[in-house]
């Protein structure tokens, strides 16, 4: 894990309240798996903001982040301009172990701002010969993003809560419409969604990536803790996660 001032190469709005940020720096070389995150210091705010890595390019030393404006901190981030530098700590946590996945077919299930880290995950899986089907859920058409990028990797089923795009409803409503059989699922989104997804897959192995407010982002402050089923009784989302095997943590 590094602390680096990374340069902003691109910063554009891609959907309602949703922004894409491309950063350049050495830190990219430390990325081990898709699904890891970076912890960004935003001018005028005390705590760093954890943002998942949507994509990365080792050759050009760049990484792409897609974040949603959730409050004043992320609103402050939108004001950062191309050419400026950002204080970035990372990459943090354990990502999706794509190099150890050898199934024929994987199902990707992303909800809202849980979609971005699944993009590089799906890309890596496809590169290593795993076919990918994706269910991407958003609140509305205006909030949807990365659809074409996911379509380039395999079949995509879209759901929106208001029915303005794709199927009306939630990601779990699209599950019966997945045609191919899959041996593994990988999901990221709000905890209620992860629980619904996991409950629908009692016998299928899966990986879940969790969101939580963080303090230090390195495992020292115990702010982002989730109950686990092992003897220790807890996992720290920032360093033991954010990706966990389904069944490893208690979703409530």
């Amino acid at each position: 894990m590094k602390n680096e001032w990374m340069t902003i190469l691109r910063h554009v709005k891609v959907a309602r309240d949703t922004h894409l940020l491309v950063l350049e720096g050495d830190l990219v070389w430390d990325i081990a798996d898709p699904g890891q995150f970076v912890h960004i210091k935003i001018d005028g705010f005390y705590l760093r903001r954890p943002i998942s890595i949507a994509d990365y390019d080792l050759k050009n030393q760049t990484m792409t982040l897609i974040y949603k404006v959730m409050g004043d901190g992320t609103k402050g981030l939108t004001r950062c301009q191309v050419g400026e530098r950002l204080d970035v700590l990372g990459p943090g946590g354990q990502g999706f172990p794509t190099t150890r996945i050898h199934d024929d077919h994987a199902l990707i299930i992303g909800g809202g701002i849980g979609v971005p880290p699944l993009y590089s995950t799906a890309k890596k899986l496809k590169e290593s010969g795993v076919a990918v089907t994706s269910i991407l859920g958003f609140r509305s058409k205006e909030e949807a993003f990365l659809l074409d990028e996911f379509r380039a990797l395999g079949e995509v089923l879209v759901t929106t809560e208001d029915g303005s795009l794709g199927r009306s409803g939630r990601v779990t409503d699209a599950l019966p419409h997945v045609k191919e059989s899959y041996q593994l699922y990988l999901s990221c989104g709000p905890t209620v969604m992860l629980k619904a997804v996991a409950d629908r897959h009692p016998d299928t192995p899966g990986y879940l990536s969790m969101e939580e407010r963080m303090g230090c982002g390195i495992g020292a402050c115990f702010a982002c803790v989730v109950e686990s089923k092992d003897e220790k009784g807890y996992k720290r989302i920032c360093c033991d996660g954010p990706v966990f095997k389904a069944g490893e943590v208690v979703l409530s």
Partner: protein
Amino acid sequence: MNLSVNLPGLNLKNPVMPASGCFAFGKEFAQFYDLSHLGAVIMKAATKERRFGNGTPRVAETASGMLNAIGLQNPGVESIISHEIPFLKEHHLPIIANVAGSTVEEYVEVAKQISPHVDAIELNISCPNVKEGGVQFGTDPALAKEVTRHVVEVSDVPVYVKLSPNVTDIVCMALAAEEAGASGLSMINTLTGMRIDPKTRKPVIANGTGGLSGAAIKPISIRMIHQVYQAVSIPIIGMGGIETAEDVLEYLLAGASAVAIGSANFKNPFICKEIIEELPATLSRYGFSNVKQAIGGTHVEKVETPVLRS
């Protein structure tokens, strides 16, 4: 420059240490720098049994600071002794154990078990984030005196009582700790606060209230140390919102003999090491040739300032 300070049980090569709860047991920060740079380390609170802590969210942003309500999550004193202290011992630096509990008996038990393995105890009678124990001992001088007396009796090492700022008269609490046999004071713990989310109309932190820390609380801590320094004759470890070497100097001048850095570790994992490196230049800029000259300098000047005063 000689940065050393000697306090009861603690021979510090410099006066800077990470504050309890902001550094866990050191392992996470050891990936960023060699912990032997630190003056000492104050471990995360230990209770008798392991505790899971509060629900999430446990932290929230505030103006120039943060709220937290972790809830003393820790693996329990036995696990800390066998799994955490050996790692810190490898770095050859004084170790301070933060001792917490719900009852006097629990405080005594934890102190008895952990004191043979550490250099000092920081008696945590000031955690605002647990329902039982903690802060009621820290807001009632009679209770503070009782728990301090019992812990001092069983402890093999000096006891520093960590005071709560959530009181009307901090001097009265400090005197109670001193009279009960404390070798030093550690001040201050966080201030109880709350944030409410207008969307949910509920507190942002799952616990409801949380402890306010960060730059926002520094003037309060400085004021309290300034008051207490004049009333007691035991040393003070100062903390609250330290982010720069100048902040350290401000604490020393108010009357702290050493300082702890808390929330700033979350913003910048290198902060303790960076402040230690900057401290000599900062001290000399203000006319000091060692740390000791600066301690209590607001009250009694040991050296003259090189800066012109009107």
